[in-house]
């Protein structure tokens, strides 16, 4: 028998974990979360079709593409992507520790870091498989409203899909690291995603550069909704970096945190509770 390489070991952990992850209760929860924008889009479409109300802002009629852009901002980018990152990322190793099944993986002839990488790949596949179809459904439900052309806005859909996949990848690796490092990763994750990131974005200066949202938002092809106070303040101080700079930083965060997470798992001793 030959020891599987790091990559092979990761893939084998991926195979072992994907089914578990995909058919777990968590996925039901995740389906509910990502199903809600679809439901919302359906309701909006029904209202429009019934002619109950035309969607207007200051007497200007807004089209489906604008509503779609708003949902990408308000629901997907600010809520769904970070929540799924926290939800799954912090659980990559913590779940195995809590369930005490990590023993079976740590007593195999593979590097421990590969366990994290394999589970991370399963997370990414699982979330992308659920989130991206939901976005596409919302797109097909909303964009035709107000006779917007599906063809002309299709490139922005592709950007949205890539952006959300990137967001899932970066948040996943960040919270994967947090989950591998901390005993109570969820509290930290929530404070980071819904406290620090929101707060740092409203301050002028460099603080915002220490958030993932700052770089992700720079890639969004839709205008930022400014109705809420927080949104307005964030828009006021918004100085988006260029797409290339954002991509470079996001890639750095992604690979950096994934490396740190794998290294932590490699070196850290996990004591199972009796």
């Amino acid at each position: 028998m030959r020891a599987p390489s790091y990559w092979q070991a990761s893939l084998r952990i991926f195979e072992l974990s994907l089914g578990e992850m995909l058919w777990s209760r968590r996925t039901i929860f995740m389906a509910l979360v990502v199903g809600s924008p679809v439901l919302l889009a359906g309701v909006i479409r029904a209202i429009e079709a019934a002619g109950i109300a035309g969607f207007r802002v200051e007497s200007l009629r807004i089209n489906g593409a604008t509503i779609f852009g708003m949902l990408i901002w308000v629901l997907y980018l600010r809520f769904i992507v970070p929540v799924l990152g926290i939800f799954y990322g912090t659980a990559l190793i913590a779940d195995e520790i809590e369930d005490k099944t990590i023993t079976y993986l740590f007593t195999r002839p593979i590097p421990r870091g590969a366990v994290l990488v394999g589970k991370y790949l399963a997370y990414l596949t699982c979330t992308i498989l659920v989130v991206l179809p939901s976005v596409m459904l919302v797109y097909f439900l909303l964009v035709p409203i107000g006779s917007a052309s599906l063809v002309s806005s299709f490139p922005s859909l592709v950007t949205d899909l890539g952006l959300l996949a990137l967001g899932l990848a970066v948040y996943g690796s960040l919270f994967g690291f947090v989950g591998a490092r901390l005993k109570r990763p969820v509290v930290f994750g929530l404070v980071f995603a819904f406290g620090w990131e929101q707060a740092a974005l409203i301050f002028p200066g460099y603080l915002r550069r220490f958030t993932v949202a700052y770089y992700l938002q720079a890639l969004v092809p839709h205008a930022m909704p400014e109705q809420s106070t927080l949104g307005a303040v964030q828009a006021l101080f918004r100085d988006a970096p260029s797409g290339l700079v954002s991509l470079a930083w996001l890639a750095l965060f992604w690979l950096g945190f994934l490396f740190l997470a794998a290294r932590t798992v490699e070196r850290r001793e996990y004591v199972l509770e009796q």
Partner: protein
Amino acid sequence: MTATAQPLVEATTLSKWYGQVIGLNDVTVSVPAGVTGLLGPNGAGKSTFMKLMTGQLKPSKGTIAVFGEPIWGHPHLFFRIGFCPEQDAFYESMTGLEWLTGLLRLNGLDEKSATTAAQHSLVTVDLVEAADKKIGSYSKGMRQRVKLAQAIAHDPALLILDEPLAGMDPIGRRKTIRLIKDWARAGKSVIVSSHILHEIEAMTSNILLIHNGRILAEGDVHQIRDLIDEHPHTVYIRAQHPRELARTFLEHDDVLSLKVESDAVVVQTARPDAFYSRLTDLAASSESGEIAEITSPDDNLQAVFQYLVK
């Protein structure tokens, strides 16, 4: 005890503490090839020792080597090690076969060989019929057996089994004991833990006695048996006429002390074998009235541990 070949496991001044709690305290020991029983009461440090020898825990002090190499950070050693942990933890939604195949793939086997090896190990632990059922639906005994199957599936040279008989029915126990013995007969080694002396006795005569995080004794289990027998032994006898019974006991010099209660007599004896033999005769003859109950509060390892610690 002297090891002729390289020891399987070698611990040198090995200590492990969890915060302020000591799990293992300054242990220096060599485990030879063959079957070795790790015997000790609950909380003695058996599981900590096993986790250290399987590289799940890092020593707080000292070193531990398996097959001559430190186990922490050397996963390649797991080609030669199979570990059956104590905890009842599984991927509940997987079938036994899927789970074993998945784990075997981590040992470097391709899909086909992994499936074959998984099936083979399920045959060994007598779980073929449940191979395609979800582990979540397994009984306690079946769960123990599938856990054992994952440890033996890759045919390791050293099996480390943490309380493998816990939760098994008598037939399951007998089969597992036979499996362990067959494993040793095939020239491989086993380290098995238990807190029950006769379980260990059934598997091996070579034991390590562990208590309060320290190795108290190592060697032949019969020597430990002798210690139990030599150690003053307390017997509680509930009888119809305890005073008459006490008078009969006093005629023999192996009785060290006697205490008569309203419906019972408590005896301390230096030679339990002789005493029990006489007691059986007495009970059969009913000479001193009816004997309702015989118990020995210290007919267990605890008494030996206390004796050895003194």
